[in-house]
């Protein structure tokens, strides 16, 4: 616990009074969190109890309300406070001397530094990725469990309530604490480096954003311990079912708040960083497409996420405070929930895929050794998707009973989103054309992504066409579509990005043979798992059912077997990552011969990224142009590299 002593102290001047060393119990960290968290739980608990006692409500100890306020609001705040995410701000607010420019919590010098509140965007990026992959594995394990139940018709292992809980928790973990934050992790690592910036604009906010994430994930998982089991209304949590369900539902309502707050804070951070911290010469038209992608994604997040926060608060109020936002009594409007929910959750689909588009653009260009085809149109199509994303939410509600006139306009805008998406796909193909293709693992995942994402995009066309959607809605066709978009789409790009930046993050190279094995296992098992679901759904099997008609027994057995192989493929990936990080061959600073800035510094990059601010002189994708340069780095990289 003496990282202070090892940390660089570049700018100690100006602080004559060195910070008083505090005891273990008072120092920011896990020990302090271990007592502040329960302390805050009791504060929350007695706020509730006192209030109920004053009001004369019976019972005074209402454990649902106590768990809601103390367990899901004050205790997590205590946890964050104990870890030290608020220390600097509290010093500043209370007028005590702040430790400006003391970089004690910046950069990782030993592995324990990854378990502390750290302000280095590269450390936070890795914290994000490791945490989100833990949730990915847990979420995948839940999927294995309910695929075992679905392997045969009839009920074998679980009750229907448990089954619904497994399905709901699987989707929730994958969406809110895996895909969305995994992209935030990759972007956290890459974007400041790509911009030529020393860090994110608000490093302390960045640390806070990350630490809210384990809180959200823990809440989702803790719901399994609630009486009545985990939340069981799907990740969509439709009212009024959600306000009538057992207590586990509230864990979803509140978990989403923490994940959403984390997401919004990160997105703001990206926006400010991208707008204000570009290196000299880095105009918007010279930004790598990954940066463009995260810029548009962040706009989507800050505009849309408050809507899901609102929807979850209101549906929870219907339950705990007996309001009538979404119940049919007292003037509530049941469909209002779906409108508000999808006003976030449709843009969320693009939140979960635009960063992937950015990753794929980087990889396709580097591994084809060609400039990205139609760079400006690629950036403009991202903006096009951003705008259209807000005008298509009701295509999730074609059968919901909403106003009939909304269906045709929403169908047209939905179909039109295929145009900018098509531009991106065709431009990637044109980038491949006549290139010098190197089929390393990142490139395999990129090409695999294009093929599976095209299937997901085309099944999206079927679902946009209202009459077909009316037939296919709420069936396994939807399950197939969403997995082609979010697994074949998002998850493939996350794998591609991880393999691509792995040498930059760790300084070591992953095992290429295991990487390729991982790709082929994933690609084959993924298609074998999810492609048959198109047929199962169109033929008549609804989604989210624990039991189904016997005629679908054989095909579901096949699907389950391949889903287990898909699960096994993740073991190959995890083994490769861990062993390569520990003792893979040294990668060198630029193993892919890429032009973007992050590859021009050492691997892993120096703690403060650059010795001097880089000068950007050209486009990031000038492969094949003799003498072309994207960036000039004066003085080279800092020698000081973390262990």
């Amino acid at each position, binding site marked *: 616990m003496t990282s202070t002593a090892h940390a660089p102290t570049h700018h100690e001047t100006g602080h004559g009074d060195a910070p008083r060393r505090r005891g273990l119990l008072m120092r920011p960290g896990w020990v302090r969190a271990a007592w502040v968290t329960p302390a805050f739980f009791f504060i929350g608990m007695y706020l509730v109890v006192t209030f109920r006692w004053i009001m004369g409500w019976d019972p005074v100890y209402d454990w649902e309300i106590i768990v809601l306020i103390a367990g899901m609001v004050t205790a997590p705040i205590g946890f964050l406070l104990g870890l030290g995410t608020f220390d600097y701000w509290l010093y500043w607010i209370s007028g005590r001397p702040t430790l400006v420019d003391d970089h004690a919590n910046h950069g990782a010098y030993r592995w324990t530094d990854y378990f502390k509140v750290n302000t280095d965007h590269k450390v936070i990026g890795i914290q994000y990725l490791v945490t989100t992959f833990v949730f990915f594995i847990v979420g995948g394990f839940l999927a294995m469990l309910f695929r075992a139940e679905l392997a045969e018709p009839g009920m074998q292992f679980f009750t229907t309530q448990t089954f619904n809980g497994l399905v709901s928790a699987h989707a929730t973990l994958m969406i809110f604490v895996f895909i969305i934050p995994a992209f935030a992790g990759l972007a956290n690592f890459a974007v400041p480096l790509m911009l030529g910036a020393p860090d994110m604009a608000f490093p302390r906010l960045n640390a806070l954003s990350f630490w809210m994430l384990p809180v959200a994930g823990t809440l989702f998982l803790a719901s399994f311990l609630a009486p009545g089991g985990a939340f069981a209304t799907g990740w969509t949590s439709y009212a009024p079912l959600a306000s009538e369900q057992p207590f586990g539902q509230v864990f979803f309502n509140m978990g989403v708040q923490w994940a959403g707050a984390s997401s919004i804070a990160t997105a703001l951070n990206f926006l400010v960083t991208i707008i204000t911290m570009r290196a000299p010469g880095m105009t918007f038209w010279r930004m790598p497409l990954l940066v463009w992608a995260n810029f548009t994604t962040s706009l989507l997040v800050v505009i849309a996420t408050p809507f899901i926060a609102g929807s979850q608060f209101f549906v929870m109020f219907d339950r705990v405070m007996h309001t009538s936002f979404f119940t049919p009594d007292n003037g509530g409007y049941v469909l209002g929930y779906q409108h508000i929910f999808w006003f976030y959750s449709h843009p969320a689909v693009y939140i979960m895929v635009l960063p992937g588009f950015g990753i794929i653009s980087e990889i396709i260009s580097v591994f084809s050794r060609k400039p990205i085809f139609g760079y400006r149109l690629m950036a403009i199509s991202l903006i096009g998707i951003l705008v259209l994303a807000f005008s298509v939410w009701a295509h999730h509600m074609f059968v919901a009973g909403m106003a009939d006139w909304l269906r045709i306009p929403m169908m047209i805008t939905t179909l039109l989103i295929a145009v900018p998406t098509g531009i991106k796909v065709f431009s990637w193909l044109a980038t491949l054309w006549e290139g*010098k293709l190197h089929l390393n693992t990142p490139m395999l995942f990129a090409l695999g992504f294009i093929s599976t994402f095209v299937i997901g995009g085309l099944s999206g066309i079927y679902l946009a066409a209202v009459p077909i959607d009316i037939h296919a809605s709420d069936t396994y066709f939807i399950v197939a579509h969403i997995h082609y978009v979010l697994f074949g789409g998002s998850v493939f790009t996350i794998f591609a990005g991880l393999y691509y930046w792995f040498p930059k993050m760790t300084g070591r190279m992953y095992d290429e043979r295991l990487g390729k094995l991982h790709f082929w296992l994933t690609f084959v098992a993924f298609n074998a798992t999810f492609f048959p679901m198109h047929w199962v759904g169109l033929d008549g099997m609804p989604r989210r059912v624990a039991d189904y008609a016997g005629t679908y027994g054989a095909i579901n057995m096949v699907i389950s077997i391949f889903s287990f192989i898909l699960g096994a493929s993740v073991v190959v990936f995890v083994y490769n990552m861990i062993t390569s990080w520990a003792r893979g061959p040294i990668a060198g600073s630029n193993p892919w011969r890429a032009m973007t800035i992050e590859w021009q510094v050492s691997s892993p990059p120096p703690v403060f990224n650059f010795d001097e601010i880089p000068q950007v002189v050209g486009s990031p994708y000038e492969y094949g142009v003799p003498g072309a340069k994207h960036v000039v780095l004066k003085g080279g990289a800092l020698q000081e590299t973390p262990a």
Partner: protein
Amino acid sequence: MLGIAGVAGVITTAIALLIRWLPSSASEEMDRITFTYWFATVICIAIFSLVIGVIVYCVIAFRVQPDDDTDGPPIHGNTRLEVIWTVVPAILVIAIGVVSAVVLSKNADAGANPLKIKVFAQQFAWRFVYPGDVRSDELVMPLHRHVKFDMTSADVIHSLWIPQMGQKQDVVPGIQTEIVITPTRTGTFSLICTELCGLGHATMRAPVRVLEPAAFQTWLTKQRASSGGGGATGGATTGGETSGGETTGGETTGGTTTGENAAQAQLGAKTFASAGCGSCHEFQKAGTDAQVGPSLDDLTAAAQKAGESVPDYVRESIEDPNAVVTEGYQPGVMPQNFKDSLSSEEIDALVAYVGGEEESK
């Protein structure tokens, strides 16, 4: 490249044609949905084959050895190509949009004289009400006539879908939703709830029959007679073969004790089916084996534990399900509105049916 795209096209077309993707249509609406589906499929096969063709060709033709560190030609773009792949997809998707809009308006058109059926959904049962307040737990439709459903839900959102008839519509508490189905072939089908509605969602189904118009009229007349005989709230037959009406009407007039008992037993069985008890409860007498709620087969122990006689315990559990909750089950799951939604005769009959003496098997 075109060769590979062609092969991809042939394979995809074969997959599209050889597998029967959509269930064989049983309604005019599904015919139109099937047409829209094939219209979109032709376009999608073309686009998919092109993309896969280019990827596979590039991988074969442009792959280089790992130690080749040359770069490709610095092509930055091509305005004409970019315009083409913006405009052509736009035209194609608009075409799909126009076809869909036309089909949608036709599928929503109930014509001048539709048969109107009211649908009431609740966890986890369907009830259908025909003109003249004829109630049924089975959906029976006449061939070749527009049937317009006016639907509402007593609790949460459900969704009505008969796969072979294509049409689907959520059934929402607080508002009324509509849907039109025009059956084109006779037969039996299954109506499925497709919106997650809680524990019994997977088993929330109802039988569907399509009859020739004359047979439908006969059925409706019988149902009407049966409702008359069993009182205003009486109701439905559990299956096509057993028609409850005749016996009920006939024997109550007789007034014998055995006749009354038989009538009540029949009403109990009917109510058990129409209220959806079997969606959640195992009950051998009714032939149900659902595991959502506690089994109803031997209630002596449970009633003893609650300190009540079996009939009282059954009545209490129907009218106020949360009063005593069997160990291992959750309160608040069983619908709490049966006291209002069922008539007192129906509840009496149900109590006798579920909680009565074990009859000879």
